[in-house]
Structure formats: structure tokens, C-alpha cells
């Protein structure tokens, strides 16, 4: 699994959005990284025609996912969404008030810049690699190499400096906030889904569907069951083909 994979051929004259994600197909989630799952959920929610390509080519920023549209490469899932909103005249937050849009941004950032690092630290430092739920085994040398780099990043970001118990506690507080804000609602801001639902789902699906051996999964089942209910709602609404995606051909799926 090299990280500088071959570049596929794109038809830059069409309006199709090529959605490129690294092949981290999980046994229980379409991608073990929350960001491709976020972006693909957005593409489905916004009904933007796209072609999913699973190759090992990272973006210009060295990350996954990225998109290509009419010859333009856009890196970073959030910049992709902003670009696509403009290109396709989409606004999944249109029905939100100004205050709700502000809260939407705050929740987005809590999920992607804090809860994400809880997920990363647990996956790479405290869990058994077999429990990651990857559809193919990572050779142990490569796993060790990636873990070293993740540790360096996590220490620089800050989360990596905390103990396992502290990281669990930080994750619990984030999950509690999400659960309390969601309450009985169908989606985060009511009966209509919005942009941040894509991100929240991308992240929560990792805890609820993939990391089933993790203490956070047990915590959600016991104390925040509405988060599990929410994941199923999102999955049933935007991923009716979830099981086929997991079982089927991982190289490309057309909408």
C-alpha cells in the first residue's frame, strides 16, 4: 500500500466530481478515515454526481480525501465542500438560523479537531490493531512506522501528551455534548440534515460501527444511545447501499 499511487485518468470535460479516497475500506465502515466518509455523505446528501475512486494517491496537502472537478484538484474535505457548494449552488445549511450556523461550525470543529484526535490516539496507541476492523491487514512494520508518525503528530497537536484515562475522559465530554445537543431530534438541527451532520456521522460511525471493541463504543451504547440511533438514521437515509459498499468492488462506485 504505497502512498504515492498511480494517477487515474479523469474526464475533465464532464461535470462529474471525482472523489478520491485512500483504500482504507473497513470491515464495518466504507472508510476507516472519518473524512472520506464525511465528504461522500455530503455528496449523497447534496445529490452531486460523483465517481468514487479508491487509490493510494494523497492530496497536495498529503491527506485524504480530495476531489477533482473540471481539471481542478481540491484538497481538504471542508475546502472541497465549500468549492462544491459554489460550483453546484448547494447550501445544506440554508434552513439554519444565524445562531444555528454558528453552533454548526463550533460542533464541526469540536468533532474534527478534538474528537478526531481521541479516535486517532485510541486506534493507534491503546487498541489492538486487529480491532481496527480493516478489511486487509497492515504489515506490522508499516503499522509501527505509521504509529510513530501518528505519535509525533498527536504530541504536537497536544492530545498525545495526555494519559489514556484523560483521553477517554475528553472523548466522553465531546460525546456527551453531541448527545445533549442532539437530544430527541432526528438530525443535529431538527428534521432536515445539514452539513455538520456529514462530519458528525463520519466520526461517530467510526466509534459506533467500526471500533466496536473500544470503550467509547460501550460508553455510547450505555450512556448516549441517541448517538447510535443517529448513526443508524444517517446510514439508512444516505447509505441504503452500505452493506453492498462494504462487500462490493472497492475501486469505483458511480452515483
Amino acid at each position: 500500500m504505497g502512498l504515492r499511487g498511480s494517477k487515474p485518468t479523469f474526464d475533465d470535460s464532464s461535470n462529474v466530481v471525482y472523489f478520491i479516497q485512500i483504500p482504507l475500506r473497513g470491515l464495518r465502515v466504507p472508510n476507516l478515515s472519518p473524512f472520506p466518509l464525511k465528504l461522500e455523505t455530503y455528496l449523497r446528501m447534496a445529490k452531486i454526481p460523483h465517481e468514487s475512486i479508491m487509490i493510494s494517491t494523497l492530496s497536495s496537502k498529503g491527506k485524504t480525501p480530495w476531489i477533482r472537478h473540471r481539471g481542478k484538484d481540491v484538497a481538504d474535505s471542508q475546502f472541497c465542500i465549500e468549492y462544491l457548494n459554489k460550483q453546484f449552488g448547494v447550501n445544506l445549511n440554508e434552513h439554519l438560523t444565524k445562531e444555528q450556523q454558528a453552533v454548526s461550525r463550533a460542533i464541526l470543529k469540536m468533532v474534527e479537531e478534538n474528537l478526531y484526535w481521541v479516535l486517532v490516539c485510541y486506534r493507534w496507541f491503546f487498541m489492538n490493531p486487529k480491532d481496527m476492523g480493516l478489511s486487509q491487514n497492515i504489515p506490522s512494520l508499516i503499522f509501527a512506522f505509521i504509529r510513530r508518525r501518528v505519535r509525533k503528530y498527536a504530541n504536537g497537536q497536544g492530545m498525545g501528551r495526555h494519559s489514556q484515562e484523560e483521553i477517554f475522559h475528553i472523548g466522553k465530554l465531546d460525546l456527551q455534548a453531541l448527545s445533549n445537543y442532539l437530544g430527541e431530534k432526528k438530525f443535529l438541527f431538527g428534521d432536515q440534515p445539514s452539513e455538520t451532520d456529514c462530519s458528525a456521522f463520519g466520526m461517530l460511525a467510526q466509534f459506533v460501527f467500526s471500533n466496536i471493541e473500544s470503550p467509547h463504543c460501550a460508553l455510547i451504547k450505555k450512556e448516549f444511545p441517541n448517538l447510535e440511533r443517529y448513526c443508524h438514521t444517517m446510514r439508512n437515509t444516505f447509505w441504503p447501499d452500505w452493506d453492498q459498499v462494504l462487500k462490493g468492488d472497492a475501486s469505483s462506485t458511480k452515483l
Partner: protein
Amino acid sequence: MRLTFGDTRLLALAAGAIAVGVVLFLNASRKQRKRKKLPYKDESDTVYVVQIPRGKKVPSPSPFPIKLETYLRIAKIPYENVFARKFSSKGKIPWIRHRGKDVPDSQFAIEYLNEQFNVDLEAHLTKEERAMSRAFLKMVEENLYWALACYRFIHDDVRKADYPSVIPTWALLLFGRRIKKYAWGQGMGRHSVEEIFHITKLDFEAISDYLGDKKFLFGDKPCVADCAVFGMLVQVVFNQTYSPHNALIKNEFPNLERFCWTMRNAFWPDWDQILAA
């Protein structure tokens, strides 16, 4: 066994090396003991806040000591500042010491103090408001922080920012190089200057839109998120007044500047007196 002249010389060398080693060790221990003699009175209930010295424009060039001190002032918890370049067990500042216990990380310190002093600045909030408070806290400390750090240390000359004079320029520049490495790993450092400015603007907009005309984020009473927002925004509003972020706040989000003045007047009436001369 009779010792030859060579053996004696070897023994003398070994003895000399051991003596030098012992002297160096004792000297290092003495320096260690001297460093440890910080003014803690562990039997009292005073909370010691360890942070770097005051700046000339802001009480700290870092947002986290200001967040923590503002919390202590709002909660009326007796505290004493210890201005020292002494980093916590996690390698950061600020940290606190209370009754002989060291607690690193501003947020863990606040949780500890809430328990010790039976404080809850969020008691008046609903469950949803507490959730939103957490979200804003994390947006400010895990996203906006990195955007502003990239500006201060990577895009601009860090020597323009207000730092206490005891921190030499070479230390600032070295820290800047470290921030650049950390920001790459965290993710913010991979974006361009314009992209990071755009991210900053969206965060400012969110705080501004949620604050609206309110006195504090959630009404008339401040909470921990207000302390975090204040600690971060004063770096733009009072410290780096030359920055494009300062102009952005003045032009597009004036209620953020108004908020900073409200917090400063309410909880830092001694602001001007405590700044470094």
C-alpha cells in the same frame, strides 16, 4: 599482587574521573534543589498558577494563562501567580499547584478546581447550552488557536508580538520552528496563508454571530467558554493590533472587540497596573 607504574597511573585516572563525576553530580543536584525552591505553601488553600511573565500589552502572550486566570477571578478562587519558565509535566504552560498537587493543562486544572472549590460556572446553562459551550471551547482552543499561531509564528515576524523581555529572541524563533512542525502534524500548517485567514474569519464569524448583542456568550453570566474566547481574542484585539485579524474584527465583527472590553473591565480592572512596565 604488586602494582606497576602503569597500573597506578590508570588507577589515578579512574579516581580522578570518579571525583569529577561526583562533583558534577552534586552541582547538578544543587541546581535542581535550587530550581525546586519555588514559593509554594502546600499547607494553604492557595492555588499557585505557574506561567511565563507578564507582557506589556496583555497579561500573557499565550491565551491559556489568561483563560485560567479569568476563570479564577470569576470563580473568586484565591490564587497566586508564579512567573517562571517552568513547564508542566506535559511540557506546557500554564499549570497549577494546589496543596502539593500539580495539575497541568488549563482545562484539567479548571475541572480539578471546580471539584476542589465546588464551582460550576455553567450551572445556569441548559443541557443544550452546556453542549454548545463545549463546542465553542473546542473550536477556539483546537482550531482558532492553530490558525492564530500559524500567523504569529510562521506568516508574520513573531518579534512584533508582545512578549515579556525575559524571553530572548532566539527562544521565540526556536519555538516558532517547533510550532511550524506541530502545525503540520495537526493539519493547519498544511494550508496556505489565505486559507488560514479564511478559516480564522469563519471562526470569528461563528463567535460573533452566536454572541450577537449578548453581554457574554450565553447571556448575562460568563462561563468557561467565555474565558477561553477572551484569552484567545485579546491576542488579536490588544496584543497584535497591527495584524489583519485586528482589522477584520474592527471592520466586520465589532461585537468581538466589545466583548473583550466587557470581560476586561469586569474581571481585569487592574489590567493596566499588572502589565509589565
